[in-house]
C-alpha cells in the first residue's frame, strides 16, 4: 500500500484488507514487545441522523377511558407559557438500534478501561474500582431525591459529613463545600470567596487583581476573569521554577489573591511555596491552592500547613471517581476557619441534641455565603465513590498512592529520557512529582514530525497521548502522568511504544505524519474550533451552521 495515499483517506473509505502499515512487532527474547492493535471503525452517523419517523423504543400503553375522563388533559395543569407548541424533535429509534449505536461508539473510543492510560497528563487517569460504581448505582443511593426531607436521607448526609472530615484531615482546612460539580466550578468558587472576603472588608473595589502562574491550570486565570478580576500571569525563571522575584513585582495594594497549582503541570513542585504565600498575605491578598495535581502529595504536604486560605480537590482526578467524558465530577472546596462563612450553602451539620428528628441536617442559615455554585449539595454519586475509595485505602493507603504515583512517574521519566529526541525541560537532573511535561523539540527539528503526530501514531498501538494545555510554552509538548495504577510492565509497554514511534519518526517520518492508520478515524480538521461561526454544540446548531454551508 502506498504510504502517501493513506493520507487522503476519507472517513467513509473502507479500511484496507491487509494489516495497514503497522510494522511487524519487534521480537525480543522470543516475545513481541508491541502489541498489534486495530480499532473498530463503524463510520457511525450521529443519532439524530439515524432517526426514522415512527420508530419507537418503548410503546406506552393506552390509558383507560375511566382514567382519562377522571384526570383530563394533564398537560393543561402546566402554565400556558411552559407548554410546547409542538413536540421536541427527539430522534426516533428502536431499542436495538439505540443499543447498537452506543456500543459501536464505545468501540471507537480509546477509553481508560481499554488502554494503558498514562498519556493524559494532568488528568490523573487511575483505575476506578468497579465496586465503587456498584455502590453509587445501588438503589439506596441512586433512588434518593435531593428534595427529600432530611430525616429520610440521614445515610447520605452522614456520608457527606464524614467525607468532609476526611478532606479536612487531608488538607488541614477547617470546612469544605462538596457542592461544586467540577474543578473549574471549584476554582470559580475560590475566586468568588476571595471577592466576597474583600467585599466584606470594604476593599472589593480596590483589590481587583489575581496573580497566577503560566504553568498553573489555565482554569485559574479563566475563572478569576469570569469572576471579574484582572489577571497577572507569572512566567517561570530560567530553571522553570515559579519566579519569586516576578511575584514580588506583581503584588501591590491591588492584589486580591494568588491562585496557583502546585506541583505545576510540569510536575515541578514550587520550592518557595511558603514564601509565595507569605508575600501575598503581606500584601493583603488571599491564597487559593488548586490541588488538581494532588495525587503526588497526598499525606505528604497539606495546603493549610503551607498557609493557604482556600484549596480544592478534583474528586474525579485524585479520588478516582473516575475522570472522563465530561462528568459527573466533583470539585470540593476547602476553606480556613476565617473564610468558612463564605462557603456555598448549604453545609452538612451534625446536632446530637436529644429530641431532634435527625442527627444530620443542612445548614442554610449562612448569611455571608457566596450562595449556590451548583444544584443541591454536590454530585451525591461521585461523593459516594470518592468516600468508598478513600475508606478502602485509609490514611496510610493514601500516602502510598502518592509515593507509588511519584515513583511510577520518575521511572517513566527515566525510561523516556533514554529515547533520542525527547527532553524534560526545566529543573534538569531533578526528580518530578506526579507528572512530566516532556518536549520533542529535538526530534521535531531532526525529522519534521510534531508532537501531535507522535500521539496520533501512538494511537495505532492502542494508547492515548496528550500534548499540553495551550499555550505551548514547552515546545512540542507531551504530558505523561502514570499515577499509581500501572505496573512496571505497563509503564515499560508505554515507554516502548514511545521509543518505537520516535524511532519511526527518524526512519520513516511519513508513516508517522500520516497516522493514525489503525484507529477509528484519521486526522480531522480542527480549525472550526477557532472559529465561532462554525462551532456546533447542539444538533440544531450543527444543522444551522454546518449543514447549510455544505
Amino acid at each position, binding site marked *: 500500500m502506498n504510504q*502517501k495515499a493513506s*493520507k487522503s483517506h476519507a472517513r467513509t473509505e473502507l479500511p484496507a484488507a491487509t494489516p495497514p502499515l503497522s510494522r511487524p512487532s519487534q521480537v525480543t527474547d522470543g516475545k513481541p514487545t508491541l502489541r498489534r492493535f486495530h480499532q473498530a471503525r463503524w463510520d457511525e452517523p450521529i443519532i439524530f441522523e439515524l432517526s426514522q419517523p415512527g420508530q419507537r423504543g418503548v410503546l406506552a400503553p393506552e390509558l383507560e377511558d375511566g382514567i382519562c375522563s377522571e384526570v383530563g388533559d394533564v398537560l393543561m395543569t402546566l402554565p400556558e407559557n411552559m407548554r410546547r407548541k409542538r413536540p421536541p424533535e427527539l430522534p426516533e429509534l428502536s431499542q436495538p438500534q439505540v443499543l447498537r449505536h452506543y456500543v459501536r461508539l464505545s468501540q471507537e473510543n480509546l477509553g481508560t478501561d481499554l488502554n494503558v492510560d498514562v498519556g493524559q497528563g494532568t488528568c490523573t487517569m487511575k483505575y476506578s474500582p468497579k465496586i465503587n460504581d456498584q455502590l453509587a448505582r445501588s438503589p439506596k443511593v441512586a433512588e434518593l431525591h435531593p428534595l427529600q426531607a432530611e430525616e429520610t436521607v440521614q445515610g447520605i448526609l452522614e456520608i457527606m459529613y464524614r467525607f468532609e472530615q476526611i478532606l479536612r484531615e487531608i488538607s488541614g482546612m477547617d470546612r469544605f463545600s462538596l457542592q461544586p460539580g467540577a474543578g473549574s466550578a471549584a476554582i470559580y468558587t475560590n475566586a468568588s470567596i476571595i471577592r466576597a472576603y474583600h467585599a466584606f472588608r470594604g476593599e472589593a473595589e480596590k483589590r481587583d487583581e489575581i496573580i497566577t502562574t*503560566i504553568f498553573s491550570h*489555565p482554569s485559574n*486565570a479563566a475563572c478569576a*476573569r469570569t469572576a471579574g*478580576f*484582572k*489577571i*497577572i*500571569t*507569572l*512566567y*517561570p*525563571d*530560567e530553571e*522553570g521554577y515559579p*519566579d519569586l*522575584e*516576578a*511575584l*514580588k*513585582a*506583581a503584588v501591590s495594594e491591588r492584589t486580591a489573591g494568588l491562585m496557583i497549582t502546585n506541583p505545576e503541570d510540569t510536575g515541578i513542585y514550587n520550592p518557595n511555596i511558603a514564601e509565595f504565600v507569605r508575600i501575598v498575605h503581606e500584601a493583603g491578598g488571599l491564597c487559593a491552592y488548586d490541588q488538581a495535581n494532588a495525587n503526588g502529595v497526598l499525606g505528604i504536604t497539606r495546603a493549610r500547613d503551607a498557609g493557604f486560605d482556600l484549596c480544592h480537590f478534583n474528586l474525579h482526578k485524585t479520588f478516582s471517581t473516575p475522570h472522563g467524558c465530561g462528568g459527573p465530577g466533583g470539585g470540593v472546596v476547602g476553606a480556613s476557619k476565617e473564610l468558612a462563612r463564605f462557603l456555598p450553602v448549604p453545609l452538612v451539620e451534625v446536632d446530637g441534641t436529644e429530641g431532634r428528628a435527625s442527627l444530620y441536617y443542612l445548614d442554610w442559615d449562612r448569611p455571608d455565603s457566596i450562595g449556590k455554585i451548583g444544584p443541591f449539595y454536590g454530585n451525591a454519586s461521585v461523593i459516594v465513590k470518592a468516600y468508598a475509595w478513600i475508606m478502602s485505602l485509609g490514611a496510610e493507603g493514601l500516602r502510598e498512592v502518592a509515593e507509588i504515583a511519584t515513583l511510577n512517574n520518575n521511572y517513566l521519566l527515566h525510561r523516556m529520557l533514554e529515547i533520542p529526541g525527547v527532553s524534560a525541560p526545566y529543573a534538569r537532573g531533578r526528580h518530578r512529582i506526579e507528572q512530566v511535561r516532556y518536549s520533542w523539540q529535538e526530534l*521535531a*527539528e531532526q525529522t*519534521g514530525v*510534531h508532537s*501531535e*503526530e507522535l*500521539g496520533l501514531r501512538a494511537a495505532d498501538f492502542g494508547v492515548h497521548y*496528550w*500534548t*499540553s*494545555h*495551550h*499555550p*505551548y*510554552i514547552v*515546545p512540542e509538548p507531551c504530558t505523561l502522568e502514570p499515577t499509581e495504577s500501572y505496573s512496571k510492565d505497563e509503564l515499560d509497554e508505554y515507554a516502548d511504544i514511545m521509543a518505537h514511534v520516535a524511532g519511526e519518526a527518524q526512519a520513516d*517520518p*511519513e508513516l508517522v*505524519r500520516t497516522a493514525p492508520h489503525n484507529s477509528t478515524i484519521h*486526522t480531522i480538521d*480542527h*480549525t472550526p*474550533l*477557532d472559529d465561532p461561526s462554525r462551532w456546533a454544540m447542539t444538533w440544531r446548531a450543527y444543522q444551522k451552521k454546518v449543514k447549510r454551508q455544505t
Partner: protein
Amino acid sequence: MGKRLGLIVNPVAGIGGRVGLKGSDGAEVQQRARALGATPQALHRAAEALERLMAVEDLEIVTYPGEMGEDAIRAGGFDFTPNWTVRVVGSITPSATTARHTRQAAREMQRLGVDLLLFAGGDGTARDIYEAVGLDLPVLGIPAGVKIHSAVYATSPRGAGDLAALYLEGRAGSLREAEVMDIDEEAFRQGALAARLYGYLRIPYRTSLVQSTKVASTGEAAALAGIAEDVVESMQANCLYIIGPGTTTRGIAGALGLEKTLLGVDVVRLAEGQGAVPTAEKRGELVAADVNEAQLLALLDEQGEPGAERALPARIIVTPIGGQGFLFGRGNQQISPRVIQRACTHARQPWENLIVVSTPDKLYALGTQPLLVDTGDQAVDELLTGYVIVVTGYHERAVRKVAH
C-alpha cells in the same frame, strides 16, 4: 487541489558572515567576501528547507533561474519528486544578481498567484521582498543571511520548511504581520548598531496542529482588540501618549479612531472632554505623527517640568520586537534615553509611565528569555532592568523579566 509555492534565493546572502564582514550588502563587500574565500550559504539552506516540504503532495514550485532558486531545487533533486512540478521564470545574468532581481522575482511570483513565497536570505532580502509585495502576499523567510533581525524568518531552514508545509496543507491557517528590520551595515561594520524597522510582511503562523478542546485560542485579532480596549480604558485626559511602532500599538491608535503611521512614533492624547466617556466611545487626537527625538522632547517640554505642580503626565507605549524581545533600542530609537528618562522622572517605579503591550503569542515564543533594552545609555538600561508588567489582553497581564 495543487498548491503553488514561490522560491527566491538570494545567492549572496550570508556570504560575508563566515569571513567576518558583518553583512553582505553591496557589490564591493560581496567581492571582498569572495576574495576572502567565502562560499554562498543560501543554496544549501534553501535545499534544507525544501527537504521538509516533501510531505506536500501536488506542489508546483515557481522559481527564478540558476543561483536564484533553480540550483537549489536541482541540488536537492526536488525536480524528481513525484507530483511536484518546477517552473522556472524570468532571466538573470549568473553571478551578477542584485536586489533589483529579488524585487522583480517577488513581483513576478505574486503575479503568477503563488500561495506562499519562500525566500532565503537575510534582513536585506526581507526588505526587498517587502518593497516588492508588502502585505499582499503570504511569505516566509529561510534564514541564510548574516544579519537576521527581522521576525519574518523561521528559526532554522528546517523550521521554515515545516511551517511552509503546514501552511500549504492548510494546517497553519492564520497569518500575522511580522517585522522587517535591518541595520545600517556601514555603521555596523564600524561597530555601531542601529536597527531600523522597515515594514511588515505577512507570515504563516503555527497555532497548533491539534487544538485541545479544553482551551479555545482566540486568535490574533481578538488579542489585539483586547489589548487596545485595556489601554484605552486606562487613558487619562491631558496625558500625552507616545506610541511606538508595531501592529499591537497600531491597534490602540485605531481604537481611538486614529490612523497610526506604520513605522513611525506617533503622539496622541484623548480628544477634548473624552476623559470620562465610556471606553468604546473614547476618541483620540493626533498631536504629531512620525516624530523624531527632538520633536518628542519639545512636546514633553510643553507638558511642563516633571514634578512641577502644574505638570501634565506623559506615557510611552511600546511592544517588543517579535522573536527578539527588544523593547527599546531596535526600531524605535526616536524614543531615546532622554525621552525615556524624561517620562520616568518622578515615577514611583521605573515602568510606571511605560506601557508595554504584547499579544500572548509573542511572549510565548520568547520562552523564558527576558525582554531586552538597549537604549544606548547604560544608566537608562540599568534603570529599566528588572521586571515589567505587560498588557497581554483586556484586564490581562504578564510579568516578564527585563535585561540589557
